[in-house]
């Protein structure tokens, strides 16, 4: 790293130059992408409010949709269970992988690369492919939904946990090393307490995320509230579909609130 500049002017000029280069690259990427998919920024943004109006006009739950409340609530409960269980299982394995894969705590750099790319693989196999792989073998059931969510969550949590651990101040770990603590002790007594609150919020977020993804997975596996949504949606019962969205939103907001609350309590 070059640390000596002739004058502050030169230093700031270089800073600015770097900033400009980054900005220009970003703008170039944006412009190129726009051209490739023929996207029109301004006309599109102008129409955003109109879309929102349409959404509320069509999807507001009506009197009729209340009659669907029973099955919706039951499926929502099932979906919540699958979302929670897949997240918890995934976070258990994700934590192990993250500790083994984080730069600061990895026992071997090769393992780190393997884990990172393994996680990337899990995240990036598209849902359609997951559903093909899993549906053909595990059939249409809650279990298939569980597996699909589990694998995708594992991919994300491994990465998120890894980075949380990497962001940790290395000096604090050094203090434990200096005490003569071994690897696992450093992890359990140093790393985990420091990151517990962040990890918890991640876990709660992934539950929320899986609840929403369940709409996608549900369509594929024919289970849960996602399937129900698809069913109402496809049969043009938009009010019922809207009711499902509303209920999911309420649940998601509740989860988010409790997440903040819990994080504050354990911080």
């Amino acid at each position, binding site marked *: 790293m070059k640390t000596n500049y002739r004058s502050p002017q030169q230093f700031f000029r270089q800073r600015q130059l770097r900033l400009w280069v980054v900005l220009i690259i970003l703008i170039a990427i944006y412009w190129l992408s726009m051209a490739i998919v*023929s996207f029109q920024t301004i006309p599109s943004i102008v129409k955003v409010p109109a879309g929102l109006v349409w959404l509320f006009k069509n999807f507001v739950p009506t009197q009729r949709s209340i009659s669907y409340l029973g099955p919706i609530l039951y499926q929502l409960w099932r979906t919540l269970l699958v979302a929670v269980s897949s997240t918890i299982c995934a976070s258990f394995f994700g934590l192990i992988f993250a500790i083994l894969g984080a730069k600061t705590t990895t026992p071997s750099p090769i393992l780190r690369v393997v884990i990172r790319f393994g996680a990337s693989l899990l995240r990036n196999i598209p849902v359609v492919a997951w559903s093909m792989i899993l549906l053909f073998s595990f*059939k249409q059931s809650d279990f298939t939904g569980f597996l699909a969510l589990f694998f995708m969550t594992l991919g994300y949590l491994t990465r998120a946990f890894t980075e949380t651990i990497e962001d940790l101040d290395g000096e604090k770990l050094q203090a434990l090393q200096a005490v003569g603590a071994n690897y696992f002790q450093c992890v359990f007594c140093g790393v985990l307490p420091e990151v517990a609150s962040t990890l918890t919020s991640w876990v709660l977020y992934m539950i929320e995320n899986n609840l929403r993804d369940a709409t996608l997975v549900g369509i594929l596996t*024919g289970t849960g509230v996602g399937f129900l949504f698809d*069913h109402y949606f*496809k049969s043009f019962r938009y009010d019922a579909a809207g009711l499902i969205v509303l209920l999911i939103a309420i649940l998601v907001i509740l989860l988010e609130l409790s997440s903040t609350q819990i994080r504050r309590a354990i911080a």
Partner: protein
Amino acid sequence: GCASGTATGTKSDSSASKDKDKAITVVFYPNESAKSFSGSRDALKKSIEKATGKTVKLQTTTDYNVAIQAIASGKAQVAYMGANGYIQANHISKDVQPFAAQSDAEGSLKKATYNSYIMVQQKDADKYKDGDKYSIKNIKGKKMSYVSNSSTSGFLVPTAEIKREFNVKDEDKLTQNGQFFSKVLYGGSHQGSAVNLLKGDADVAAFDDGDLMPYLKPSEGSWDKLGSTFEVKDDAEAPFTDLKGKKVVNIAMMPVQQGPWVYNTKSLSKDDQEKIAKEFTSKEFASNKEIFSQPGSKAAKLFQRKTDKQQLIKVTDKWYEPTHKLVGY
């Protein structure tokens, strides 16, 4: 391919925004009828362009609701859809009107239908006999497989048949586990639904004829006969590779009306409507080798032509009365 087709279509579109109103958007949903035959689609685009003198933009979507909303809202002017989809679109906006559908082999509308089946495995077939005839009386409590709930022949028609037979009022009963059926599966496609049955995940499955023809052959009876037995072909590709030789029997067969070409009368000028309708129902159009697979040829095209007489033929909303009834509006 269709990818480049879209690109050029939109480019001229953004350069001269005036032309935008004049451009005609055609939307396809890859339903049971419209497959990814990009060659056919390009030919279609050319012939519409020739007929109207306007730029044509082709849009494909994988989502059923998007296609229907697009044509109903007038953002797309022309669409090719299944019968059920048409009814839905027409229900949202009366501006959506059919103008052409595939004729029967005689070139008329009389038998302009294809078949939807309810099938069971051959080894269980006897259980579904009512006297010496097959019936669906015994399917209650079984495991059922549909195609998807937006499918006409793989969902709408079979459920209508079951509703009629068992006098069920609430359609939702037929789609939920443990209500009418012990379990309800969705194959995602006609092939998928058939596979559910062949593998034994479902006891009863609904699907149509056209989509299964490459994989099944009638070993007893024919495609048009109730109670026929079908066998998986020896050279069937995935996902049927492991299922060679397995047999299924159709215990119910319902005619399904051919899906229409529709336009939105609000967003397409009268003049263009006539021009396109005329072009589509013309004899030359039917002999376009890119759009119709000619009799005897194996090449997969948008439409199959069994005889020289088969072509697109003019239809109106009235002809779809039976499907209107099935849907309920």
